[in-house]
C-alpha cells in the first residue's frame, strides 16, 4: 500500500517537475531536454529489439531517418497539413519500411541480422544523399512550416514557440515511452523476452517465433520513426547526416550500453548521461567526441553493466554490508 502511494507521489512529482522545467531552467535547457527525450525514445524503442528480443541491429537509423523525412516531406509538399497527421506520417513511413524489411530480417539472427541492417541502413543513407530532387542531398530538407497544434474551434498552440513545443514534444515522447513500457508488461512482452532467452522452446510451446519478431520489429521501427519525426519538427531540418548516418545507428547501442543493458530505463539514463556530458564538455573543449570516446572505453572496461547495473551492484553491496 505504502509502496503504491510512494509510486504515485513520485509520478506526480515528476509530472510537476516537467511542467515547471522550462520556468526553472529557461528555454535553452528546455531544448537540451527535448533532444534528450528524443534520443531517449529512440534508444528505448531500439532496446525493444536489443535488450528484450536480443537482436542487434546496425542500421536503425533508417527508421529514425525515414520517420524524420516522412514528416518533413509531408509538411513540405502538402500545404496546410496539420501537425498530428504529419507526425503520424513519419511513424507510418518508418512502420512501412519495417514491414517491407521484416520478411527478410526475421529469418536471420545474430551477426547476419546486424550486417543486413548495415547494408540497408547504408543503402538508405546513400539514397538520401544522392536522390537530391527528393531529399535535398547533403543539405537535407529544412525550413518547412511547422503547423500549429489545434483542435478546430477549441484551442490552437503555436508550435514555433519553443515553450509550447516543449510541452507538445514531452506529451508525444513520454507518451510513446509509456506505451513501450506498457507493451513490455503485456503477455506479448513476456514472449518477447522468451524469444531472446530460448527461441526454440518458445517455438515448441506453440508460439510463432518469426511472426512475434516481425511484430516487435515493426513496433520498434514505428516508434523510432516517431522519435525521428519529432526530431525533424524540433530542428525544422533533417539531413542525411543526421538521419541516416551509421553513427546515428550506433547511437542507441551506445546509449543503451552506457545506461545499462537489460533494463527498460537503461537507455533513458544513457541518453541523460550523454546529454549532460555533452553540455558540460562543450563548455570547456571542442573535442566533445574525444571525451565520448574515452567515456565509451571507460564504461566498457570498468562498468560493463552500464549505469543501472552499476547502481544495482553498489546498492546490493551496501545492503549486504548493512545486514552484517
Amino acid at each position: 500500500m505504502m509502496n503504491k502511494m510512494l509510486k504515485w507521489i513520485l509520478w506526480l512529482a515528476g509530472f510537476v517537475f516537467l511542467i515547471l522545467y522550462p520556468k526553472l531552467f529557461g528555454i535553452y535547457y528546455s531544448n537540451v531536454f527535448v533532444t534528450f527525450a528524443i534520443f531517449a525514445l529512440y534508444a528505448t524503442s531500439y532496446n525493444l529489439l536489443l535488450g528484450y528480443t536480443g537482436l542487434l541491429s546496425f542500421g536503425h537509423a533508417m527508421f529514425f531517418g525515414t520517420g524524420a523525412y516522412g514528416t518533413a516531406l509531408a509538411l513540405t509538399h502538402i500545404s496546410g497539413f496539420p501537425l498530428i497527421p504529419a507526425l503520424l506520417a513519419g511513424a507510418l513511413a518508418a512502420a512501412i519500411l519495417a514491414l517491407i524489411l521484416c520478411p527478410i530480417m526475421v529469418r536471420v539472427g545474430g551477426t547476419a541480422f546486424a550486417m543486413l541492417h548495415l547494408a540497408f541502413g547504408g543503402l538508405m543513407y546513400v539514397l538520401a544523399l544522392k536522390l537530391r530532387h527528393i531529399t535535398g542531398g547533403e543539405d537535407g530538407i529544412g525550413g518547412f512550416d511547422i503547423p500549429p497544434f489545434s483542435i478546430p474551434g477549441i484551442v490552437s498552440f503555436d508550435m514555433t514557440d519553443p515553450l509550447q513545443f516543449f510541452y507538445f514534444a514531452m506529451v508525444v515522447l513520454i507518451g510513446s515511452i509509456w506505451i513501450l513500457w506498457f507493451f513490455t508488461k503485456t503477455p506479448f512482452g513476456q514472449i518477447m523476452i522468451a524469444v531472446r532467452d530460448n527461441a526454440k522452446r518458445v517455438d515448441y510451446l506453440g508460439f510463432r517465433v518469426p511472426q512475434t519478431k516481425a511484430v516487435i520489429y515493426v513496433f520498434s521501427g514505428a516508434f523510432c520513426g516517431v522519435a525521428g519525426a519529432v526530431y525533424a519538427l524540433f530542428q525544422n531540418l533533417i539531413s542525411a547526416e543526421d538521419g541516416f548516418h551509421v553513427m546515428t545507428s550506433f547511437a542507441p547501442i551506445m546509449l543503451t550500453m552506457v545506461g545499462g543493458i537489460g533494463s527498460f530505463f537503461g537507455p533513458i539514463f544513457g541518453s541523460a548521461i550523454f546529454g549532460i556530458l555533452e553540455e558540460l564538455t562543450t563548455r570547456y573543449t571542442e573535442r566533445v567526441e574525444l571525451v565520448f570516446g574515452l567515456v565509451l572505453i571507460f564504461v566498457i572496461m570498468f562498468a560493463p553493466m552500464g549505469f543501472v547495473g552499476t547502481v544495482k551492484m553498489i546498492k546490493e553491496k551496501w545492503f549486504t554490508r548493512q545486514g552484517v
Partner: protein
Amino acid sequence: MDPVTAMYVAQGMHGLAYGMILFLLASGLTLIFGMMGILNLAHATFFMLSAYLCYQVIAWTGSFWLALLIAPIVTGIIGVLLERFLLRKVHAFGHIGELILTVGVSLVILESVKVFWGTESLPVQIPNVLQGLVTAGGLDYPIYRLFIIGLSLVILIVLMLILYKTRLGMVVRAAVSDADMVDALGINVPLVFMLVFGVGTWMAGVAGVAIAPILTVFPGLADQVGMDAFIVVVVGGFGSLGGALLVAIICGLLNSYGVQFVSQLAPVLMYIFMAIVLVFKPMGLFGERE
C-alpha cells in the same frame, strides 16, 4: 585501339587498383572480424592513422619507401596494444562490447589525429620511379596503380601461403575454429590471436600508405573507404580471403564503371549489391559459419 575501348580499359584499371586497396584493407578485417570473430570498427581508423604516419615519415625523411615500411609496422604495434590491453577484456560481452570499445577507440584516434595534423588534406608525393605511365598495346597505364595491384597480389599470395601451407597457419586456423581445444593442446592461443590482430592492422596500414598518394590524407578517409571494406568482408563471407578478393574487385569495378554510367548513383550500386547478396545468402558469398 579505339578511344571508347581505351576508356573502358582505363576505367577498369582504376577500378581494379581501388579494388586491390579495398582488398588489402578488407583482408585484414577478414582476419580479425571474419576469422577471429572480433568486430573491429576501428580497423578503418587504423588505415587512416597509417596514412597520416606515412605523411609524417615522408615529412621527416623524404622517403616513400621508408614510409611504406615504417607506417604499417607502427600501426600494427598500436593494433597489438589495443588487442592486448583492451579488446581481450571485453571479448566476453560479445559484439556489443567490441562495438562500444572500438567505436570509442576510433573516436579517440580520430580526434587525436585532428589535434596533431589538423583537418586539411595533406598531399603525399610518390617517388619518381612510380610516377608516369607505361604504354602497352596502345594504352597508357599509370605505374603507381600497377604497383598497387602488384603489391596487393604479393601480400595476398604470402598470406595464403602462410595460412594454408605452414604450421603457423595451421595453428591459426585451428585456434579460430576451436580455441579451447587448441589451448588444451598447449598452444598459447591469446598470443596467436594477438599476432593475427597485429597482422590484420598491419595490412590496414599498408592499404593506408597505398591510398595516401591517390586520395591525399584527410580525417574523412576512414569513413569513405572503411565502409566499403566492411561491405567487402560481409559480402565475401566471414573469414574467406578468396571471397574478399573477388568482392573487392567487383566493388572496385562497380565503383569505377558506376561513376561512368550513373555518376550520381555509383555508391548506391554497392549497397544494392550487398543487400541482394545478403538477402539470399545471409552469411555472404563464401561464408559458412555463424
